[in-house]
């Protein structure tokens, strides 16, 4: 069963690197935010799969925390770009 987790993790990693190209080369700032947001989602799944590969399912707690942090980060950066300040 470990092979399936490993294959899924590798595919997610390749997808994250493809998104990283868009985050670096994106023409507008919104492309970069979109790519960063998608990389965050892929990272959450990747962390959970790492926990299943190494047999330590406590990694899911880290995934929950990372999900909340990634969402707050996206909203905060968007608000800063939209209004120019954070208050």
């Amino acid at each position, binding site marked *: 069963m470990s092979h*399936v987790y490993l294959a899924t993790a590798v*595919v997610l990693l390749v997808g994250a690197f493809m998104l990283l*190209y868009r985050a670096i080369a994106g023409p*507008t700032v919104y492309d970069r935010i*979109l790519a960063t947001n*998608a990389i965050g989602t892929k990272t959450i*799944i990747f962390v959970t799969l790492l926990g299943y590969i190494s047999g330590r399912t406590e990694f*899911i707690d880290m995934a929950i925390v990372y999900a909340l942090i990634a969402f707050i980060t996206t909203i905060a950066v968007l608000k800063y770009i939209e209004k120019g300040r954070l208050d």
Partner: protein
Amino acid sequence: MHWNEIVTTVLLSLGCVISFSGSYGVIKLPDFYARLHAAGKTDSLAQLLIFLGLVFVTPDLLTQIKLLLVAMVLLITAPTATHAITKAAHLDGLRPWTKSERGGRP
């Protein structure tokens, strides 16, 4: 293989395909809104499929609940973030790509 491992393999493979197609679309599509369309939907569906697949091989009830909790949190926050990005880009004046701008027939 047990039946639950087969179900997990199918769901994880489906999640892989959908997630990879979303990443490929973000690279390949010509416009910001089209790229948003590729990334926003595939992310929600792929994470739901992968977490649901992992639930079937988890023997522990608490871990299953945690997996479903992550899936629910992502199912709420990912479309919200996508909507916020779209709204910010629209208010900023980003116009959608049309075919006639690039020399094609209108």
